[in-house]
Each structure stands twice: as structure tokens, then as C-alpha cells.
């Protein structure tokens, strides 16, 4: 059931703004169970990592996997399945559940579990036995272009992981602009399209990623206790799977190219209509959160 090599997970988004532009991310068939007509269950799977639980020793112990994969990840799966059974979410693939429950930032209860299931699958696939080292030439070229050097990227990624206060994740993201994502809204467009960036996120939120590190304390406490920076360094030097990053980058670029073609088509269709040819930037995430708290 577990793939020997990580294959990129793909998503389906649909626009909620009445635009004809669609971001087509196809579902990864491996993680979707399509029920037969009348059956109630598309049980979300508790997918094992693409290696055995002790394969990452001594850098990440078997004991950590027994708890992190065996208890934490499993609990997210079990609790999600309990939440969605008998609801309209029940037959949806994981990615669609995430989008539906993201709900433009006004999170519905299953979001946390769904997003954490996805995040953890992605995290296991971001590591491999004998990991570390250097990325492929193509990824390396992009990293050099967008961060200046590989060392500068590593520094920024480690800093993001170390300064994610509390529980959360740090990500390497392929920021392709002009997304027209259904529930999430667009990042503010800029000249820097198709760029690699490092971001961090709290709890279960994720952006559109190539690589992640889990910095919840349960991810490293048994092996490293409070020494999060040591865990981060070990991850970069011994665990990171640049193979997975390469595969995901290819998928992300293919999607970006496909989107551009669609937008070109849409622009040509709506040529007489000014409002369609000059789209307003929409924020990627809602601003009703606490960044502007006065208290």
C-alpha cells in the first residue's frame, strides 16, 4: 500500500467567485477510495510512511514513530472518520474535505483533523532513509535563484522552523501566483511569480508545499527534548528527501503552466469585459484573525 517513492499529492480546487478559472489539481488515486453507489464510507486511510518505523534511526527513533505515526497521526485519522461519517463529507477525498472545511478561514470542526492527516502524510514523505545531502540540479538552481544560495535557504528554513512559536510547521513552498483557489483566497500578486519561499504555519494550516518539517513538540521531544534546533539540523542533514521535493516541484510547475493556459483561454473569451481582464487581487487568507488585536 505504501509507495516506495513519494508521489506528489494533488488537489482539486474550484473557484467560488463565479469565475470560470479553475485550478485543476487532480486527486491522487492512491489515497482516494471511491465508494460504490449507495455505500457510506470513504474511510480516510491511516497511511504508513514509505519506509519502516525504524528506518530513520538514529536520527528519528522508532519510538518516536510509534507515537507520532502510531498514535498522533492515527488519532487524527480516526477522529476525522468519526466526524464525517454520515455527512456530505463522507464520500469526499481528503483534499476536498480540507477545502470544504477551511471555509474561507472560518474553520469547520473537521478541518483540524483533515489538515493534520494531510500534513503528516506529507511530512513522512518529506523524509527518507539516508536523506539529507543536496537537491537535484533543477531544484538547486531554483533555490539559488530565490534564496541566493543553498546555505541561505537552509538558514532561512531553520529559522522559520525554530521561530514557529508553539505548535506548527515550516514549509518550502512553490508560490505560483494567480491562483484562483475556491475557499482560500489568493496571495497578493506581485512580480515574483513561480518563486520558492519559506513559510511557517501554526497547528494545522498549510500552504501549497514542496517540503515540510513538523515542529510540534511531539515530533521531536522523545529524541531531542527541548533542543528543537538540533532536531531541525538533523532533519536537514540526515532526513530530508530531496527526491520528494523534485517530484512535487514538477507537479507544481505543470499545474502552474496549465493554469496559465486556462487563464489565457479565459482572457480570450472575455475580451470585451474589463472586469475579467483586470482581476482584482484577493487575499490568500482571511484577515478576521488576531493580527490587529488591540488588547
Amino acid at each position: 500500500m505504501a509507495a516506495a517513492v513519494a508521489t506528489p499529492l494533488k488537489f482539486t480546487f474550484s473557484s467560488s467567485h463565479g469565475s470560470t478559472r479553475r485550478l485543476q489539481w487532480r486527486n491522487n488515486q492512491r489515497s482516494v477510495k471511491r465508494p460504490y453507489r449507495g455505500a457510506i464510507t470513504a474511510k480516510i486511510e491511516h497511511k504508513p510512511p514509505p519506509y519502516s518505523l525504524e528506518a530513520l534511526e538514529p536520527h528519528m527513533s522508532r519510538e518516536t514513530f510509534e507515537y507520532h505515526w502510531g498514535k498522533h497521526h492515527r488519532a487524527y485519522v480516526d477522529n476525522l472518520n468519526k466526524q464525517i461519517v454520515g455527512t456530505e463529507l463522507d464520500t469526499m477525498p481528503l483534499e476536498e474535505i480540507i477545502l470544504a472545511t477551511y471555509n474561507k478561514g472560518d474553520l469547520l470542526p473537521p478541518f483540524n483533523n483533515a489538515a493534520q492527516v494531510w500534513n503528516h502524510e506529507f511530512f513522512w514523505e518529506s523524509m527518507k532513509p539516508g536523506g539529507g545531502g543536496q537537491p537535484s540540479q533543477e531544484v538547486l538552481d531554483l533555490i539559488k535563484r530565490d534564496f541566493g544560495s543553498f546555505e541561505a535557504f537552509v538558514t532561512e528554513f531553520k529559522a522559520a522552523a525554530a521561530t514557529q512559536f508553539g505548535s506548527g510547521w515550516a514549509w518550502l513552498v512553490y508560490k505560483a501566483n494567480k491562483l484562483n483557489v475556491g475557499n482560500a483566497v489568493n496571495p497578493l500578486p506581485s512580480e515574483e511569480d513561480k518563486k520558492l519561499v519559506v513559510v511557517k504555519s501554526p497547528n494545522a494550516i498549510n500552504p501549497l508545499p514542496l517540503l515540510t518539517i513538523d515542529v510540534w513538540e511531539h515530533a521531536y521531544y522523545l529524541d531531542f527534548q527541548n533542543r528543537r534546533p538540533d532536531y531541525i539540523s538533523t532533519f536537514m542533514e540526515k532526513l530530508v528527501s530531496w527526491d520528494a521535493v523534485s517530484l512535487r516541484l514538477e507537479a507544481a510547475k505543470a499545474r502552474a503552466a496549465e493554469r496559465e493556459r486556462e487563464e489565457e483561454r479565459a482572457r480570450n473569451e472575455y475580451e470585451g469585459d474589463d472586469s475579467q481582464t483586470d482581476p482584482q487581487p484577493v487575499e490568500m487568507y482571511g484577515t478576521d484573525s488576531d493580527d490587529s488585536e488591540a488588547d
Partner: protein
Amino acid sequence: MALRTLIARNPLRAAAPAASRGLQTFSLPDLSYDYGELEPAISAEIMQLHHQKHHQTYITNYNKALEQLDAAAAKGDASTVVKLQSAIKFNGGGHVNHSIFWKNLAPVRAGGGEPPHGSLHKAIDSNFGSFEALIQKMNAEGAAVQGSGWVWLGLDKEFKRLVVETTGNQASVVVLILHSTPSVSLSSQDPLVTKGASLVPLLGIDVWEHAYYLQYKNVRPDYLKNIWNVINWKYASEVFDKESA
């Protein structure tokens, strides 16, 4: 290792002024019990790491941020002053919260686990129905905190009532994907007063994973069940009496 306070000290006042500018710095408060004295509820290993590593790191980083703040304010560097706020809030909050937490715990020999009497007991009954009901409520809310945070029993001085509150990573706080590293305001070490200016903490339970993971692993509810055996209700009563006078 025996750590006893010989002189009563308020850790939330600076321990010593730094030389030149009179900037106050903070230092790690001593516990009034040994690391192993809260077993079996909380292991000695956890107590030592929690106190000497986690709390100390908050203090170190808080002092550093205050120093940078002082320098930036003196220069009139407004953007640096603003940028430092999240580090101050997080690390200062961590110091405030943990200083209270050590006083919220006591070995059984010093009254740990013994329920409150007198006015606090009465207030608990009238606000929550019973002592057991309060415990249940705090355990439920503590278990439900997603990610890192705290569960508090607080006194609302304005409305003269007891409340249970949680502070934690807000799942609704999201990240703007910008060209540079985004900054996010998170609340996992917010002091209780950030939930309401009239709130006074009587009792806080740390539900960050570092507070229990080595011993309880993912089973936070067991940690919450057992910690009541070492909760120092005497301290909570003192604060309650003083603040509701």
C-alpha cells in the same frame, strides 16, 4: 538537586538592573521543592527540563528582546520596536506563566492535592456547582486545546466571579504568503490577562507537550487527571483572598 528559596523573591520583578541604562533583567526563579517531589504525577525528568531549559530559555530570550527594545526605542527606531512585540509577548508571557505555574504545584507533604477550604471553596461551588465539576471542566478544556497552550482558573475582578479560560495557538490565525518571512501573532504563551484586563490567574496548567510528553506521551488527559494530586490550592486561595478583598 535541592532548590529552595531562602529569600522570598518576586520573579516577575527584575532581579538586577543592567549596568549602564538601568535596564531590568530577569532570572530564573527557584522552585520551593525538589524536582522529584511531584512524582508520580510529574516526573523529575520533566520538572528539570521544564524549569532549567524551557523556562530559562523564555527568560533568556525575554531579556534579549527587552535589551533590543530599549536600544531601538532610544534610537527612535519605530519599526524595530513594533517588530519586537511578538518576541516580547511570547517570551515574556512564557516567563510570567511559568513563574505562576511553579507556585501552582506543591508536593503532597506541603499540601499538594488538598482541596481548597474557605472562601475559594465557596466561590468554586457557587460558580461551578461543585469542586468535581470544576476539575472536569478544566480537564475537558485543557484536553481540547489544539497544539500548545494553557488552561486557567481565573478570578474576574470586575464581575466578581471565577472563570475557566484557555490560551493557545489559534487555529484561525493564518499566514500571508509574502515575499519575505511572514510574522504571525500567536497566543500560546499569552498571559491570562490578555483574555480580559480584569482577569487574575489563580491556577494555570501548562498543556504544551513539553509539560507532559516524556511521561504521558500523547495521552494528555492522563496528565490532566494526575496533576490535580500536586496542585497547590493554598496558593490559589491566598491570591483569591487578596484579589477579592
